[in-house]
Structure formats: structure tokens, C-alpha cells
């Protein structure tokens, strides 16, 4: 046992020296990719350097009546309604008005649902399959008329609490949140 000790000690010293080298290394010539927001999500109107945000992909569900009505059902089943009512807001903010705290683009709304938000919006990541999240996104946008009018739900199956999504009309999203994406 005792004869192996010096070797062990040597190895330890070598390791420590190597680790020290790595700690001190200046990787000046390395080409790191420019930082880009994940999935094109931005949460600010301001962009340092002034370059425009990247174009976002077309959102296919904005004109799909089936996806929007599925979204409407999921909105109730996943208890979105418990906090946002029929779009007028309750524990969470209104969704049928023109204020968008965390962005009005489909990507922003998707991220808000999946990631959650720090002032009380729960994260539904891992709870709702992506396709259903996109259907929810479509319905959330339908609440303020951000989808094609003929795809917007025209009737409700429950107690009459407001005009149908279709007859509410559309609002122009405003906020200190990201600008609306070109559709």
C-alpha cells in the first residue's frame, strides 16, 4: 500500500496542474455562433444594434376552423378559463383585449403556455402535447380576432357571457411586448 502513495500523489498534482491550465485558458480565436433567441422568440420591442427581428414562420392554424374550435374546448379542459374567464380575465389577464404582456405572436403565446410566466402563469410544459398547445394558441388569438374571421367560432355552447368570438371583432395588439409579426 505504502509504495503506491507517491504515484497517487504525482497523479493528483498532474491533474491539478492540467485543471489549472484549463481555468486560465483564453479562447480568443474561437468562433461562437451569434446569440439568437430560441425559436425566434423575442420579448422586447427594443433590439440592441437596431437590426430587425428574424422573420417567423407562417402560422398554419390561424385560418383553420377545426384547430380553433379544438383550442376552444382545450381552453376549458386545461382550466385556462378558470384564470382568464371567457377572455375577459380573472386571476390572469384578459385575452380578448389589445394588451399583450408577453407578446401576441403565435410563438410568444406558445412559449407563454409551455414555459409559464413569473407572475403566476403556470408552466404547462410536459402537460399538453405540442399540437394541442398550437390549437390553444390559435384559440387565444381568436379571442381578440387575430385569426381569419370565417375560422373564428360563431357560437358558444354555454351560458351567454359575451358576443361570439366571430362577432366581437378584432383588436390591434398593443404593448411594450414584441410587435405583431407579419402574417
Amino acid at each position, binding site marked *: 500500500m505504502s509504495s503506491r502513495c507517491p504515484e497517487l500523489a504525482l497523479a493528483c498534482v498532474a491533474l491539478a496542474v492540467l485543471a489549472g491550465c484549463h481555468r486560465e485558458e483564453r479562447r480568443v480565436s474561437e468562433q461562437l455562433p451569434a446569440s439568437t433567441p430560441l425559436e425566434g422568440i423575442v420579448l422586447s420591442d427594443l433590439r440592441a444594434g437596431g437590426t430587425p427581428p428574424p422573420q417567423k414562420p407562417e402560422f398554419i392554424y390561424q385560418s383553420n376552423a377545426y384547430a380553433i374550435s379544438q383550442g376552444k374546448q382545450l381552453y376549458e*379542459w386545461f382550466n385556462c378559463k378558470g384564470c382568464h*374567464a371567457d377572455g375577459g*380575465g*380573472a*386571476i390572469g*389577464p384578459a385575452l380578448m383585449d389589445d394588451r399583450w404582456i408577453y407578446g401576441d405572436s403565435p410563438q410568444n403565446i406558445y412559449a407563454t403556455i409551455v414555459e409559464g410566466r413569473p407572475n*403566476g402563469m403556470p408552466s404547462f410544459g410536459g402537460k399538453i402535447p405540442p399540437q394541442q398547445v398550437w390549437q390553444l394558441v390559435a384559440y387565444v388569438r381568436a379571442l381578440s380576432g387575430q385569426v381569419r374571421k370565417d375560422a373564428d367560432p360563431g357560437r358558444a355552447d354555454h*351560458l351567454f*357571457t359575451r358576443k361570439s368570438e366571430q362577432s366581437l371583432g378584432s383588436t390591434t395588439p398593443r404593448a411594450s411586448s414584441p410587435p405583431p409579426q407579419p402574417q
Partner: protein
Amino acid sequence: MPAGDFANTRFSSLEDVTPANVASLKVSFTFSTGLLRGHEAAPIVTNNTLYLVTPYPNVLYALALDQPGAPLKWKYEPKPSASSQGVACCDTVNRGAVYDSGRIFFNTLDGQTVAVDANDGHELWRAQLGDIRKGESMTMAPLVVKGKVLVGNSGGEFGVRGWLTALDANTGRQAWRAYSTGPDKDVLIGADFKPFYPQERGTDLGVKSWPPEAWKRGGGTVWGWISYDPELNLIFYGTANPGPWNPGQRPGDNKWTAGVFARDPDTGAAKWFYQYNPHDLNDYDGVNENVILDLEIGGRMRKVFAHPDRNGYLYVIDRETGEVISATPFVNVNTISSIDLKTGRPNRVQEKEPVVGKVIRNMCPHAGGGKDWQPSAWSPVTRYLYIPHQNLCQDEEVVPANYIAGTPYVGANVKMHAGEGGHRGVFTAWDVAAGRAAWEIKENFPVWSGALATAGGVVFYGTMDGWFKALDARSGKLLWQFKAGSGIIGQPVSYRGPDGKQYIAVLSGVGGWAGAVVTGKFDTRDVSAGNGWGGVMADLPANTQQGGMLYVFSLP
């Protein structure tokens, strides 16, 4: 303590301010909390210091009353989790702090009880009791009884399991916890439990009066007021609504929700229970205050408490036994035709009972009840109970509720409207002995503030559009009013300052369930916003703005 005394009377023995001189009340000083949510707390005064706790983020301020303008002595910030705002059903309110033996105790929205040194504001201990991931929050004002801090949880709209917990005031360690649902051992029901009515007797009714497992998310939270009778050594407190609101998902009496417990504060052991709203159909809860009084009834003095329930009935209950002595409606009620004094059970009006797939119109009172959290005051001088309350009804359709932990568990579509007369609020002086209103003041908006009665013969309350009012305690005549910067939903208090003068203090800062239309910036084209308030309060944002401010008044 916010209620002024263990009996929860909110009666101040100060008599400098009288009907003759109240008209000359002037602002003595003010203090901005810098916050925009609903300010429901009562300021408390001791050691020449005024303490107040704000809505989320629950900052505790201490103001020096012995210096001009009452400057800030210190503040204590508990920094609760921001996510807790997402499990606060009805604005992010806090109903106040309590003082005991050199310490201030209060609850945070994210489920903590905190003890702070009253002199310098340093934290003594904190106890994490609630779990926001299960939908639990804390909004009530604690009560300290014999070295135990009594606190309860909120979250009846999130499928939580309600409890009252006693903490050692010195250490924050749990002395006991009594759940409002589940097996007897969890509810602290044992050999001492002797309820008055037979339906409260049996084994494990907190399990058997529910469908399998439903008691685990059955509500019965304890977010209201606790009173204490030192002579009987009993505490009295209400349990809130069963979850979900949709009653079709929870056949049975749903014990021990929507009722009142009498317990031994030392051990937590239940002495009796009475259920105001068995199998609650309307979110009527049972959390409203139990104001301890001694009343002459049928020629003998009875130890009772008075309880204005959300179901619209004013109960006088024998606090030794739990017997209902009388139950009289104090608002227009069409959901319950009477309370059977033999059985203690409400006689319900069948066509007003919610059923899945059907919209029931004009249920009175609405889910907020004939009266909600806003505490009433008792004057032993006039022998009136001054009840701040609302006059609202609703249309409701119950629907299946999905339980997803940390999200609402309600299952009801609601739209509210003003009750008979069109006024939404009332301030009632209730003659408890006679069982009728002595007088009442109709208010345009729900009266969501607490009441204060004083020995000087003046009573105080505030309105949601910002008027702070002083009335003659006997006649109800308006004697003085002051327009505050924001709607008043706080609890007015009176204290004697270091200079010997009588002061009246109240927080303004609109919000709460009724005022969330302002604080939550609802889009009121959806009349169901805020669980049904969107339509009926659509004009409030045009009548008041947000902003927390303490106002303190005195005679010149």
C-alpha cells in the same frame, strides 16, 4: 389584532369623536404603500407604532406615531414567490397582521407565516405552511391565543384541502393542524367532540360524506376570522366552500366544509361543529366572522355569537353547544326559504339548485353571498351589528371541472347582477335581539370594506368609489365623508395616539374579489370575467383608480 379584540367586535372604546364633532375630522397624515392591488388589511397600533401589511408582495411597514407625520421606522420584505399571484383567486390581498408580546405575525401569499420583531423589524422565524403547487395560498390575518399563532390556508377555488394550523409563537414550530376534510384523526375529532345536531355525529364523516377520494381536494379552507372566548377556552372559525363549485361532482354533505368549528386552542381538539351550508350549492362558504356576544334570550342570558353568513341568513348560535337559536335573512334570499331550527338544515328552493346542463337564473344571493369577507362591527352601546355587505344575484351554469393541481377547480359559468332595488351594496345596522334591521344605507357599489363602531356613537365604513363615511350609530345619519384617492376595501380602526388624541385609520386601495375588475384590468365585454363580476362591476374602473394609501384622521 385587526378585529380589535378576541370577540371580533371591532368596537373601539374611544369616545372623543362624537356625532357632534365628527364633521370636523381632518386628515392627520397619509402613507403610500406604493402598490396597486386591493388593500384589505387593518392597520394595527401598539408601542407608539402603526403597523400595516400590504397585499402581495406583503411588505410590513412600521410608522413612528410619536414623530410628526408618522415617518417610516422600518420595513420588512418577506419576498414571497411571484408565482403565488397565480393561485390567488380573488386579487392578491392580505387581511392584516397581528401583534403579540413584542412580535408581529402575518401570512404571505405564498403560504408562509412570518414572525418579526416589533421593535426593529428583524425576522424571528418563518414557517412554510402552504404549497402553491397545490394551489394553496394564505391571505387571512392570524390570531394569537395563549402563545399559539393560529393560521389557515386559502385556495378553495383550486381544490386544496383546508386546514387551520397552530404554531408556537416563539419558534414557528407546528403545535397542531386540524384539517377541514378527511378522517377524524386529521380533523382532530375525538372523544370531546359533541356537536348539537345528529347529522354531525358519526365516524370519519369528513371521508364518508364525499365520493371516494374527493375530500382530498375538497376545500374547506380557513381564510376568514377566528374568535376566541377565554372563559370557555374555545376558538370559533368558519370553513370555506367545498370544491369544486359544481355540486354534482361531490354528492354528500361534504363535511367539514361551509360550517363553523369550536375547538380547544391548546390541543386543537374539536368541541362541536355546525354546517351552515351542507353540500354547499352556491359557494356560500362559512368563513364569515363569528362575533361573540352575550344576549338575553327568552328571559335568560345566553353565550352566543352572531354570524352573518354568505347564504344571507344572520345566525345567532349558542357558542357553548353549537345550537342555532335563530337564523334570519338580512338580505333578499331566494335560494333558501328558511333554516329549520330543529334540524339546523337549510330548506332549499329546488328550482334554484344548480344542475349540469342548465342555466339557473337569478339566484340570490350570488356566489359572494349576502355578505363576503368584509367584517362587521358590534356596538355594545347601541346593541346593533353593523354589517357591510352586497346586494347581488347571479345566473349560473355548472359544468364539469377538471382537477389539475395548481390551476382553478371551479366548474361554474357565472354572471352577476344587482339584486332588488338596483343598488349593489348595503350597510346594515342589525338589531340582533329583535332579529331585524334597525336601518340600512343603500350604496351603489358593494360595500367591501370592514366596519368600525366607536363608543363615541359614530360608525365608519368605506365605499369602493373611495368615500370614507361616518354615520350616527343610532340613526344611520351621514355625518361626515372624505373622498380617498382610491376605493376603500380595508378595515377601519381607531386608536389613541401618543399625544392622547383619538385617531381613525383606514387603507384605501381598491381591489379584492369585487374590485378585481380594476386591479386585473378586465375586459368587461366578457361579463363572466373574474368569476362572474365582469358585467356587474363594469362601471367601477370609471369611478376609481388603483393605489394603496393609508389615511389617518383626527379632530383638529
